[in-house]
């Protein structure tokens, strides 16, 4: 048992207490859900505080609490800053959220936008890109849940993975988006307090000058601003983050769910509040060698430093923060992906004339089905699947320009938008395999921009905005 581990019995107690609280809370919030709008979009009336909290909490994933320290430990100052720049995705989505609500006040999913704006070809390409990403993220979160609970408490992988999936599926099923958003609010508070406290203790106990002096001798490249791989990583991570947020129904469904006038301010504020979190979680990784900590695997550097600084209480603290971060992302992804399946695949492709009541029931069945599929894919514990998420950088970055031009300009035609996503993804994957994960997103984004620019020059689609109404 390493210093970041807590006894399995303590871990089970925490899981039971927090899991029960969230499930009961989800049931209580969802008891008045009557329509698809209530269930999928929280009645389209989410206010500023909850909107900001849910946007922020969903973007704080297990990656923010574990991979941000890892990237700082590996890529140094650029790793820390590069990860925090993922906040730009939230900040730049603010004007998009406003435009989305303005254009599609009755919209349900981002798939609706692609179908109406660009036609069938681009819609199908987009759905493939979106499901590849959503499934990759869902499976990696489920697996991360099992792996992390095992690493932090010795709890069996399959038990930990099953429990966290079961908790999230249950309260999402009972409460819909209302439950997801409300639990996100409390999970945000836990994550923020936990991260800030650990950062403060690190600053007080170790000190900036000690960390700087030790790192400059023991790990000089981490302070080198001309560290080549880290420089390459910076903008790639920015475009990966922007692509993730711009295309994903997780963020579009929130734009639809927020009350009029809330989306712009909520996303802007959430981005600004999120920005320092990876800097704090990354900063503690720089203290590792000063504390004599050299982790067995890079993603354990954050928990090991926290446990060393705070003792056994710190390990419990880390466990709760990581559990909250995992749950806040997993529930959002479950809800948003099931919305996309319900609206775009079930109603859009299979049963176009289905009634609203039928759709309400179908959305619940789809959440359960999605949970089961995720559980089955997570069972074998293919550890490389987590790494496969990096592939999705090539997919998601290709959607940035078709979304931006599609929302604000009537000129771009569907065939060019679809081709931009296909060629962008192909080029990104080529970069991934020939150079490394840190060039996939940027390559995809550049090629997609080129295709969209050619499309804007060659053809004027003259799209009529009223078609969204």
């Amino acid at each position, binding site marked *: 048992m*390493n210093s970041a581990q807590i006894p399995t019995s303590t871990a089970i107690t925490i899981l039971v207490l927090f899991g029960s609280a969230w499930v009961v809370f989800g049931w209580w919030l969802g008891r008045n859900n009557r329509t698809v709008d209530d269930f999928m979009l929280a009645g389209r009336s989410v206010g500023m505080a909850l909107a900001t909290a849910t946007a922020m909490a969903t973007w704080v994933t297990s990656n923010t609490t574990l991979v941000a320290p890892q990237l700082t*430990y*590996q*890529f*140094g100052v650029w790793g820390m800053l590069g990860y925090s720049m993922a906040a730009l995705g939230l900040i*730049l989505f603010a*004007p*998009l959220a*406003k*435009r989305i609500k*303005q254009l599609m006040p009755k919209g349900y999913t981002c798939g609706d936008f692609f179908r109406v704006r660009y036609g069938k070809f681009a819609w199908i390409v987009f759905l493939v890109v979106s499901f590849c990403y959503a499934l990759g993220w869902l499976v990696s979160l489920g697996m991360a849940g099992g792996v992390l609970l095992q690493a932090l408490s010795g709890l069996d992988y399959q038990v930990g993975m099953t429990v966290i999936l079961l908790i999230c599926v249950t309260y999402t099923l009972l409460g819909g988006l209302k439950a997801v958003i409300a639990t996100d609010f409390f999970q945000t508070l836990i994550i923020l307090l936990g991260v800030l406290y650990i950062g403060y203790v690190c600053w007080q106990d170790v000190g900036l000058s000690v960390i700087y002096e030790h*790192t400059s001798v*023991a*790990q*000089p*490249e*981490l302070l080198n601003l*001309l*560290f*080549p*791989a880290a*420089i*390459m990583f*910076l*903008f*790639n991570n*920015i*475009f990966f983050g*922007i692509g993730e947020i711009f295309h994903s129904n997780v963020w579009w469904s929130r734009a639809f769910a927020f009350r009029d006038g809330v989306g712009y301010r909520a996303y802007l504020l959430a981005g600004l509040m999120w920005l320092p979190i990876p800097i704090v979680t990354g900063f503690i990784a720089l203290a590792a060698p000063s504390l*004599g900590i*050299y*982790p*067995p*695997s*890079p993603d354990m*550097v954050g928990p090991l430093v926290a446990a060393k600084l705070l003792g056994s209480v710190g390990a419990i603290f880390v466990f709760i923060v990581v559990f909250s971060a995992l749950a806040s992302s997993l529930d959002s992804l479950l809800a948003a992906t099931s919305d996309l399946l319900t609206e775009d695949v079930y109603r859009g492709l299979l049963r176009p004339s289905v009634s609203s009541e039928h759709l309400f029931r179908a959305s619940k069945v789809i959440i359960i089905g999605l949970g089961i599929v995720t559980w089955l894919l997570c069972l074998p514990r293919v550890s490389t699947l987590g790494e496969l998420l990096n592939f999705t950088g090539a997919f998601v970055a290709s959607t*940035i320009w078709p979304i*931006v031009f599609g*929302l*604000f*300009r009537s000129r771009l035609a569907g065939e060019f938008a679809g081709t931009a996503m296909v060629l962008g993804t192909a080029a990104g994957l080529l970069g991934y395999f020939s150079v490394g994960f840190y*060039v996939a997103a*940027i390559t995809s*984004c*550049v090629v997609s*921009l080129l295709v969209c620019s050619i499309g804007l020059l060659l053809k004027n689609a003259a799209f009529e905005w009223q078609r969204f109404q």
Partner: protein
Amino acid sequence: MPGLHLVIVFIASLLAVDLAWGDSVDHQQGALDPQVTLQVNQTTVTEGFVTLSWKPLKKELAAFELVVATDPQFHHISKIIQTGSQTALHLSGFSNGDYFVKLRLPNGNPVSNTTHFRVQHRDLQSALGLFMLGLIIFITLAVLLFKFTRSSE
């Protein structure tokens, strides 16, 4: 006295051969009959980080010192890390160069083979080129979004 010079040169040569042979034997013994097998996850590193792992044959030999040096004779030691109960270490922040690693007991006796990895960071010109491309695309995106938002209001 040329004869004396020859004798001195001969004795010095013998000593040098002996010293070199001694180091070589030590290194070879570590490689041929190690109590612990030390491995590195990649021998050529372009990002400055590596994972070292080992499997102790006897449980009582679990706590070691991991020694990192820039020469195979371990004259220039850059890191000494207490491993505790860990059987793997992820190390980062290495500058360009060749690195040699071995495990030893707290009393200084080596217990593993010596393993080697080379750090050769990626070309800075290409990295800066990609950085500039990213910066230009990002500024384009931000300016377009600002312009589009203004014109749609």
